């Protein structure tokens, strides 16, 4: 039981970190960013680069990777999303193309063999009678703190309120003097930074390879559809739902079947409640 509780929380945390960033971009900028998985992969390689090339300590390398990806997010928004904003389909294509370019670039630069990035917290710890990697607990803690901070930022900070207002009505936001192009840039930066953070913490527990962004991207998309596009609360709820149902299925049946859970969840949601759990 305790195992399911902890492992479920860890996998929910990784889904939530990816999905909240993805849904934030949709909720505010009204575009689906198919390069979100590429942000994840690039985040892992940035971490790898800082560790391998500069010998940075893992904790420092994570922060550096986050900073780099935040900048990448803002740049992607400026050159690949902003000029196409009026045409959502064009944004879909440009971000998809970008994700393929990113994957190929990683392949050319780093080769196809998988790489390893170091754990930030090493060694197993015992909690509730379960031996779990300290990194897994770190993942849970980081997800709670980061998503909590994001929620506070959106509701309390002046820039956060501007972001929230833009998500409600971008024209209304401009009318009161909110520079919405800045808001979109910030949202992309935050979203990419969250993907990098997720990759840097989850990456060491998996393998780092150029196509590693695809599955997390599909999972994030699933979570966001189940939760309701653009709803942060919905994404958290759906991340917990998928994280725990996958963990339970892995324990009771097998890990192969666990992968099917998210797809079934998406299908059922689309049939029963097309706008998602918290969608409008």
């Amino acid at each position, binding site marked *: 039981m305790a195992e399911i509780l902890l492992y479920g929380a860890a996998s929910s945390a990784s889904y939530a970190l990816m999905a909240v960033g993805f849904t934030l971009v949709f909720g505010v900028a009204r575009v689906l960013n198919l390069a979100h998985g590429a942000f994840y992969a690039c985040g892992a390689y940035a971490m790898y680069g800082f560790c391998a090339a500069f010998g940075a300590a893992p904790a420092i390398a994570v922060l550096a990777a986050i900073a780099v990806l935040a900048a990448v997010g803002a740049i992607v928004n400026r050159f690949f999303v902003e000029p196409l904003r009026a045409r959502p389909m064009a944004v879909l294509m440009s971000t998809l193309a970008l994700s393929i370019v990113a994957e190929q670039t990683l392949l050319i630069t780093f080769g196809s063999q998988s790489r390893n990035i170091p754990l930030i917290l090493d060694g197993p710890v015992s909690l509730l009678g379960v031996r779990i990697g300290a990194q897994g607990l770190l993942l849970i803690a980081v997800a709670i703190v980061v998503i909590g901070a994001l929620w506070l930022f959106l509701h309390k900070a002046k820039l956060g*309120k501007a972001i*929230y*207002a833009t998500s*409600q*009505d971008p*024209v209304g*936001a401009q*009318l*009161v*003097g909110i520079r919405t192009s800045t808001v979109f840039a910030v949202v992309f930066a935050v979203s990419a930074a969250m993907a990098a953070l997720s990759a840097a913490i989850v990456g060491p527990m998996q393998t780092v390879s150029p196509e590693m962004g695809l599955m997390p991207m599909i999972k994030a998309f699933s979570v966001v559809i189940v939760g309701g596009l653009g709803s942060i609360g919905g994404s958290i709820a759906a991340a917990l739902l998928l994280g725990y149902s996958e963990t339970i299925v892995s324990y009771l049946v097998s890990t192969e079947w666990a992968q099917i859970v998210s797809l079934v969840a998406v299908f059922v949601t689309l049939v029963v409640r097309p706008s998602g759990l918290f969608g409008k």
Partner: protein
Amino acid sequence: MSIDLLTVRNVVAGYGRIRVLDDVSLDLRQGELLAVLGANGAGKTTLLRCISRMMDVASGDILLEGRSLKGVAAPELVRLGLCHCPEGRRLFPDLPVRVNLELGGFIHTADANAAMMAKVHALFPKLAERAGQRAGTLSGGEQQMVAIGRALMGRPKVLILDEPSVGIAHGLKVQIFEAVRKIADEGISVLIVEQDAEALIELADRLYVMEQGRIVAEGPPRMIRDNGSLKAAYLGM
């Protein structure tokens, strides 16, 4: 000698090949309540969209205090002293009334906003009662009050109102127009466009009448009141 705050000079504008505004000129003077009347489709909203930089003019120019607004991004207008209360209101529906108003003062300090909020509440006491309620759950008339209040929070020199009476019960309509009169009396220049000519004729300092993208008449309210054919032809009165 009155000063022109806002000048629209020979503006031509449209959507694609469709020309909506055809050589429109008007001027808004310091502290006046100026109404632009006209039937649906006369080009009133397009004119306001051009002024508030939601769309570009094909030719002609729009000047605020003598400065051309060409190339100015929409969010910068508040900083120049122009606030637009648009068609459809464009409120933030899931946010409480209080936050909608605070966001209206986005470019100002919290202290300045608190002072302005008190004035807005004095003008629309209803908004003080509804402070914690989500804006999207208010009635149409109350939402319009929030929209005007939010625009006032930007501390404008020029306030632009797009058909504030649309879809609103008669009693609230009168309240809103009276509030608009008060706003102008306090020295804020107001440009209001309306279909509901009757209610405005008594309140406005000066009127323009638009028809098919052109200004067809300009003058004080009595000009319209005393001109039966103008009323019949353009305003359906």
